[in-house]
């Protein structure tokens, strides 16, 4: 288990390999689809982002509201591929890590290697458990987006696994022992059907 403190730099990232289990400590910025769209627009226009993105990790999450007295509600990862179109721009602006679930596009995997960043996977569907790792939470921008606002979290020992590293490795692919589904349809000669 590797302990990581945010922000992260290239030295730390170069030591991370696909399959490494990590515990993240420090700040995570929470954003999903709608916030990504807004952040990317700012980058394209050359405008200032609502937070200093250098060396930071974005957690793809839209938490449930906290009950009174709680820090945050359920807060597990959402599916990452929806953020793929926006990710290279954020990496070019200095983002160093992403935390979500599910595989990334080829463009993102290439951008991870190019900009020396890392993609972490968390377990989906255990938001109640993961919420216990968040010790502080606040909305820092886009409050009007409700659950899609931009969040700032402080986390303690947040568990994740390295999926894509700078060396081009992909943990999901490596773990997948895919069996090819044979095309068995044509093995049967079923040409006598009347299709009308």
């Amino acid at each position, binding site marked *: 288990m590797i302990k990581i403190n945010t922000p992260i730099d290239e030295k730390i990232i170069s030591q991370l390999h696909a399959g490494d289990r990590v515990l993240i400590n420090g700040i995570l910025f929470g954003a999903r689809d*709608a916030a990504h769209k807004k952040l990317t627009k700012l980058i394209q226009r050359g405008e200032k982002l609502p937070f200093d993105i250098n060396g930071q990790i974005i957690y793809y*999450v*839209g*938490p*449930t*509201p*906290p*009950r009174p007295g*709680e820090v945050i*509600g*359920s*807060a*597990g990862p*959402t*599916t990452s*591929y929806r953020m793929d179109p926006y990710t290279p721009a954020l990496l070019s602006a200095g983002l160093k890590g992403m935390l979500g*679930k*599910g*595989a990334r596009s080829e463009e993102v995997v290439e951008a991870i290697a190019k900009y020396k960043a890392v993609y972490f*996977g968390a*377990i*989906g*569907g*255990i*938001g*109640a*458990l993961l*919420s*216990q790792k968040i010790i502080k939470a606040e909305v820092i921008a886009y409050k009007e*987006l*409700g*659950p*899609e606002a931009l969040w700032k979290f402080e986390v303690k020992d947040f568990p994740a*696994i390295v999926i894509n590293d700078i060396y081009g490795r992909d*943990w*999901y692919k490596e*773990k*997948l*022992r*895919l*069996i090819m*589904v044979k*095309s*068995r*349809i044509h*093995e*049967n000669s*079923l*040409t006598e*059907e*009347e*299709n*009308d």
Partner: protein
Amino acid sequence: MRVIQTSQIKEEVKRLWMEANFELPEDVIGALKDSLEKEDSQSGREVIEKILENAEIASKKKIPICQDTGFPVIFISIGQGVKIEGPIYKAIEEGIREGTKEGYLRASIVNDPIKRINTGDNTPPVIHMEIVPGESVKIVVMAKGAGSENMSGVKMLKPGDAENGIKEFVLEQVKNAGANACPPMVIGVGIGGTVEKAMLLAKKACARSLKKSSSFMAELEKELLEEINSLGIGPAGFGGRTTALAVNVESFPCHIATLPVAVNINCHACRRKEVIL
């Protein structure tokens, strides 16, 4: 004629909507525990243990099982001998609205697929209403997660594609879903009818209990589950045997020219609660 007030329906929907989000159904917990024994991957077992621990925390602290508290999908079967007093659609909607607020659930519904402004209270729900014989009302409330919903699909096969074609399509869908659908998944398959009927069957199959009854589809369900669990995706996509907890198939007669197949995937947070009034 038996009279049921919509105020009662509202209260039941509200309760079921919250409970679905806090309490993982017993059959799902049972299937997860069973899978622990068969899972040979260590990371797979660890993920399943965390899923079970998560279910305990959710139930004890009333924190939603998942931050995606889902799209409210309501199946309501009304006995022909029942008279409903009041506006029923409005009552169901109000139940979802109140449950969302009282349960501190996330508002996950946008008012328009293009403009995308959050409605703030998870309304409107998707409601499937049917008239059935008898004098009771059955309400099933599903909290349908979007990560797995996004991995669903429908295909119009040729009649000649037969069972092998069906299997091939289901396996393709599951393979493409991978970690996105939060495995171990529950796979709902709808076969037959028309294109929209097939998907509705798949959704109903998703909402069905994981406990198996004997039907002529039981063999297909068993074979599909075995093939899915040799794909290697495993819990959370970290590798392992347990890619699916169950495959549920529902079928309906179809046209001589068609073989519709629909796959609706549910995540391991297979959340649904029901009541019979």
